[in-house]
Structure formats: structure tokens, C-alpha cells
């Protein structure tokens, strides 16, 4: 497949979206006219049918073209007008329909219809969830908004965060929250600005992660901040690496809640289909299975975060299936939740003892189902992270990084693309530990891992290989691109200032890179990158060296 596929498709989608917008402006005008006519003259009530059909069409299509809000609003209006449109097709009395319509319009429907067009201004960016890995420069930067009255400190924070690749904006106190701030991902605010409860931005804080700069530790102040929706408190924001660490954590939590993989097993096909639709419209990835005997192969194929299962499915018993799954160590930690109409708590406890994790009592509301599944997926992913990620840096542990490397090596062989593996090592790290202590050394390691995670693509694999050594796998990336990215990272990392015991210092790192696809095994590629790393160390550190074999 051509490499430019995704950008080509993206362009086409954008063209379609613009076309849809232009056309829909006219459609909405027609809709307003239809409704007006029908409300004024009883012989025109049949125009309601056209209005209903248009709303139905928008409800189904606007979201696909990126206008989700328009689609949702159209859905609401469609549902409200449907009974009237049905009366028209059934041939009910026109005047009676007209009066009902008039009542509906007076109740706010008129305003909703005429403001429908405003939603055409609100389109999501063409989705970031491309199947092909994105290029580093195409990754959207996270946007951080700062509200810090101390200008000097504010400048320091803005410069520091910019080095990590954040887009930083600031507002001074009393300034209005401008339009066009909808892309803000996180807010940082000084506690003194939160004293006035009437402040305009208070209402904005509940929907966003918020870090508060506050050195007040008393219970009442902290309780108040928590109530206002603050997620984290930072004493000393000028410690940029520590601040970035909090930012990373909060942003990562936000991302993890968005998605999840759910497998449902139920022998009632209709119910199964319903669950599938509800969960997938709730943004989850779903695999539905009506035949429990295929459970093992489907699990291996789909690898869900959680499993939802009925208690009794024909000849199969849910809890027995759960116990059977636990035979295999790879499914030991898979959360299993049962659907059960049993009100009997004792029986439920018995089932839990046999390998289930929780119950959802039937009948279950759609909303409850989606929320339960989301929360469960989130928790499952958090737990999984604890097991597979390095506790200090949140990067992959050595063994997992190697598994991922070998997987990418196999992908290179199959699809014929080039990928790059890099080994990174902090320069003179022992001196940092010896002079400032291990605590400070840990801060430096975390700073580098945050920088890497933030500046590389989400598809790049980053692992902590040893004490101060890191491994990177950059899929579908050519060598000169990789070198360019790593050299920029070297320069920016060297500019970070660390504080310890009233001393300020900076640290550099060296990198060795090798083309993953040029070697027979992933192991050999790592060795080549490692050799290049040591050449770099001998040649003066703070930079990138390409493996000798790759240069010819």
C-alpha cells in the first residue's frame, strides 16, 4: 500500500466534509421553511414529513462527517417531531396537527431549529485514530493553559514546557476565557485566582484536568481546591521536570478512559446484538460471541480488557467457563463480569468464589452497561500497566520492550517497510547520583522518559532497558528521519535545568541507532545499536551515531 494513503484519505474526507457543510446550510434553510409553512397553514402540514426525513438523515450522517454535535441535536429534534410526521402519514386532521406543532414551536423547538446551523461550525478534526502510524511532526501537541500572576515564573514555566513539546498559552487574571480555547487539554492555575467563586473560568475547570499551584497545606484550603475540581497540587512549579511529570500522569489518565475492548458472551442472539450496539455506540471496541465453545480462540484473537458473560448459556455454565479460563495463566488476570438475573446474594457470592469478578444484575440499563464497562476497562488497563510498566518511568519493562522489538522486526519482514531501533544512555549518570543522591538521579531518568514519551509518536515503542539505559523502536521510520528526531531530543534534553541542594545542573544523553530491517534478528539489531552507542560515548557523548553496518 502506498505510504501517502492516510494523508490522501484524510484530504478526501476533508473535501467531503466541506461539501457536506455547504449543502447542509441550504438543507437547514429548507427545513426552517418547511416547519414555518406547516405551522402557518394547515394545508401545508405535509411538509412536516420532509422535515422529519431531513432530520433523520442528518442524525445518521452528520456524525460520520465529523459534525457529531449537529447529529446529536438533529436526533433530538427528530424524535420530538416524529409523532407529528406519523399523524400526517396516517391522514389525521391537519388543523389539529398544526396546533400541536405550534405548541411544540412555542416550547423552544423554533429556537432549536433555527440555531441548528450553528452546529456546522463545530467539527472535530479528522480523527487522529489512523490505522497507519502517524509521523512525528503530525502528532497533535497537547495544549496547556497557564494562569500564573507572577510573570517571571509564568515565563519560566512556558519555556520549560515548550521544550517538552507542549503548546503553552497563558491568561492573566481577570481576562475573559476566549472562544477558541476548546482545544485546551490541561489547565494550571495559581490558588489565589481560585479565591473568587464568581470567576468565569471556574465552570470550565470541571471538565478538564487541573493542576493548582499552591503552597498552602491546611485541610480547609485543600478540601476547597478538591471541591473546585482541582486534580493535583504542586508546591513549586519552577521545578519543571516534576511539573511535567504530573502533567503527563493527568493526560495519560484522560486518554485511558476513552477506550476499551470488551468481549460479551451470551447465547441470546438478540440481547447480544443489543449489548454490542450499546457498547460500541458508547465508544468501546466490542466482540460479541453467542457460542461459548469458541471462547478460547476468540479471546486469543481479540484480547479484550474485560469479559462480560451470562451465568447460564444453554448447556454451558458461566462460572465453570470462568474457572476453565483460569487454567491458563494468560487469562488469570482478565476481569470477568457476569450478567445475572439472580437476586440471591449467596448464590452470587458462590459464583464469585468460582472465578468471576463481579455481577451486573439483569435487566441492565444501557447507560449503566456502558459506564460499568468503561470503568472496568480503565481499571483493567491501570492494573495491566502496573504489571508491565516500569514503576519509576511508566515505560515498558526490559522483557516487554524486547517482545515488542521482535514483533516489529517480524512486521518489517512481512510488509517490507523500514523501522529503526535506538539505544539511549544518560551521560556521566554516576556523577549525578554521587553528587546529588539517588532521588535526584530518579528525577533525571523520569525527565528523559517524559521527554521521549511526549515527543515521539504514540506508535513508537519506548522501554527502560536498564538503570539509565533506554531502548526505542520507531516503526515505519527511515534512518535520517530517526537521526533528526533524536538529535533534536539530545539538544533539548541538554537545555533542561535540574535543581538539587541549591545547585543547578544539566545532563546529556548519547544514542546509537540501527535499521531494524537490515538485521536477521531483533537481537542483532539491538547489538548493532548498542555498539554504535559506545562509539558515540567514545567520540564525545551528547549526540547520535548510526551503526557502522548501516552506513555502507
Amino acid at each position: 500500500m502506498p505510504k501517502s494513503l492516510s494523508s490522501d484519505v484524510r484530504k478526501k474526507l476533508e473535501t467531503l466534509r466541506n461539501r457536506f457543510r455547504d449543502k447542509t446550510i441550504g438543507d437547514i434553510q429548507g427545513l426552517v421553511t418547511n416547519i414555518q409553512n406547516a405551522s402557518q397553514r394547515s394545508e401545508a402540514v405535509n411538509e412536516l414529513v420532509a422535515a422529519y426525513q431531513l432530520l433523520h438523515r442528518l442524525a445518521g450522517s452528520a456524525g460520520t462527517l465529523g459534525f457529531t454535535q449537529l447529529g446529536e441535536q438533529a436526533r433530538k429534534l427528530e424524535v420530538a417531531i416524529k409523532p407529528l410526521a406519523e399523524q400526517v402519514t396516517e391522514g389525521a386532521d391537519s388543523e389539529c396537527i398544526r396546533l400541536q406543532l405550534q405548541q411544540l414551536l412555542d416550547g423552544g423547538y423554533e429556537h432549536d431549529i433555527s440555531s441548528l446551523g450553528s452546529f456546522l461550525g463545530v467539527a472535530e478534526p479528522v480523527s487522529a485514530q489512523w490505522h497507519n502510524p502517524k509521523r512525528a511532526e503530525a502528532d497533535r501537541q497537547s495544549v496547556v493553559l497557564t494562569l500564573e500572576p507572577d510573570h517571571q515564573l509564568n515565563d519560566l514555566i512556558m519555556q520549560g514546557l515548550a521544550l517538552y513539546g507542549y503548546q503553552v498559552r497563558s491568561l492573566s487574571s481577570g481576562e475573559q476565557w476566549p472562544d477558541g480555547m476548546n482545544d485546551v487539554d490541561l489547565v494550571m492555575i495559581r490558588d489565589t485566582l481560585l479565591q473568587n467563586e464568581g470567576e468565569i473560568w471556574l465552570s470550565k475547570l470541571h471538565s478538564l484536568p487541573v493542576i493548582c499551584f499552591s503552597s498552602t497545606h491546611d485541610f480547609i484550603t485543600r478540601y476547597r481546591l478538591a471541591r473546585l475540581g482541582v486534580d493535583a497540587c504542586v508546591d513549586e512549579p519552577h521545578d519543571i521536570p516534576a511539573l511535567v511529570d504530573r502533567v503527563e500522569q493527568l493526560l495519560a489518565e484522560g486518554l485511558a478512559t476513552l477506550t476499551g475492548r470488551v468481549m460479551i458472551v451470551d447465547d441470546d442472539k438478540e440481547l447480544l446484538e443489543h449489548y454490542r450496539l450499546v457498547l460500541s455506540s458508547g465508544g468501546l471496541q466490542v466482540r460479541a460471541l453467542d457460542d461459548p465453545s469458541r471462547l478460547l480462540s476468540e479471546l486469543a484473537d481479540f484480547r479484550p480488557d474485560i469479559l462480560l458473560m451470562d451465568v447460564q448459556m444453554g448447556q454451558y455454565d458461566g462460572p465453570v467457563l470462568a474457572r476453565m479460563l483460569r487454567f491458563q495463566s494468560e487469562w488469570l488476570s482478565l476481569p470477568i463480569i457476569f450478567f445475572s438475573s439472580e437476586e440471591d446474594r449467596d448464590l452470587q457470592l458462590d459464583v464469585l468464589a468460582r472465578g468471576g469478578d463481579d455481577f451486573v444484575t439483569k435487566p441492565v440499563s444501557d447507560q449503566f452497561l456502558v459506564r460499568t464497562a468503561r470503568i472496568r476497562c480503565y481499571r483493567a488497563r491501570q492494573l495491566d500497566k502496573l504489571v508491565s510498566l516500569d514503576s519509576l518511568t511508566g515505560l515498558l519493562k526490559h522483557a516487554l520492550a524486547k517482545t515488542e522489538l521482535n514483533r516489529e522486526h517480524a512486521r518489517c519482514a512481512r510488509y517490507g517497510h523500514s523501522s529503526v531501533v535506538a539505544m539511549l544512555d544518560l551521560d556521566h549518570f554516576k556523577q549525578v547520583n554521587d553528587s546529588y543522591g539517588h532521588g535526584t538521579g530518579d528525577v533525571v531518568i523520569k525527565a528523559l522518559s517524559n521527554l521521549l514519551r511526549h515527543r515521539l509518536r504514540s506508535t513508537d515503542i519506548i522501554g527502560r532497558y536498564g538503570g539509565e539505559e533506554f531502548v526505542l523502536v520507531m516503526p515505519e521510520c527511515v534512518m535520517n528521519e530517526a537521526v533528526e528526531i533524536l538529535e533534536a531530543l539530545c539538544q533539548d534534553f541538554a537545555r533542561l535545568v535540574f535543581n538539587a541542594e541549591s545547585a543547578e545542573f544539566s545532563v546529556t544523553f548519547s544514542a546509537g541507532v540501527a535499521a531494524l530491517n537490515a538485521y536477521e534478528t531483533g537481537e542483532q539489531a539491538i547489538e548493532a545499536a548498542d555498539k554504535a552507542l559506545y562509539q558515540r560515548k567514545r567520540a564525545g557523548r551528547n549526540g547520535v551515531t548510526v551503526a557502522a553496518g548501516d552506513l555502507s
Partner: protein
Amino acid sequence: MTPESLQRILMVEDEPDIRTVAELALEAIGGFELTACESGQHALKKIEECRPQLIVLDVMMPCMDGPATLRAIRAMPGYATVPAVFMTAKVQSDEVQSYLALGAAGVIPKPFDPLTLADQIREIWNEAHAIG
């Protein structure tokens, strides 16, 4: 036994914008061969030429709606069991049930995400084959 792989899809959708998005989603992203028709009548004319392995139908269309189109296709020789997928903006369980009763292999809620449509269809296809 490995299931036959899905190549040829026939889609019936009256809305031109959605047809174009679906073409992108299924051809450029999904790698299928898609024949997109604007009405049930058109689909009946095109079906011999395209010989679809799977049919995707919008439920609500003027003249001949999705279920009526499917009934007409099912009546043709060679298409009695071809898997069909309905796309609908309504996701109420009784309606879904009625589509499944018509023999649909799956229902895709509208609005659909163009980037995952191909995956959804592929999943329904695999499912249909695993059961069949």
C-alpha cells in the same frame, strides 16, 4: 478451515455523501471492492455484475427501503444466504431484533466512524462465517 476472504461488497445507500465516505472507508482504508448503489432498484440491476459476497443496506430509503431490498435480493437465485448488514440511525433493541429476524448478519449504528467501518464489516463477516 480458513473462511473465504471478503473482497466484493455491494452497498445500497441513498445519500451521496455517505456513499462517498463509505467508498473511502471500504476501498481506500479497507481494501475491498465496493459497488455503491443509490437505490434498491439500482442494486438489483448491478448485483449480477458485482457478485457481492456481502451486502450493506441503509434501512430508511425512499421507494424501496433496506428490508424490502434485502427481500428482493434474497429472492434472486444464488443470493438466498448472502450475508447482509443493515445500517441504521435507530438503535432500539426491538428494531434490531426485527432486522436480525430478516436474516441480517449484523447491524451497524449510524453515524458510523469511517476509520473503523471496514473493521466492523470484517468482524461481522468473520462472525457470520464462524457460525455458518
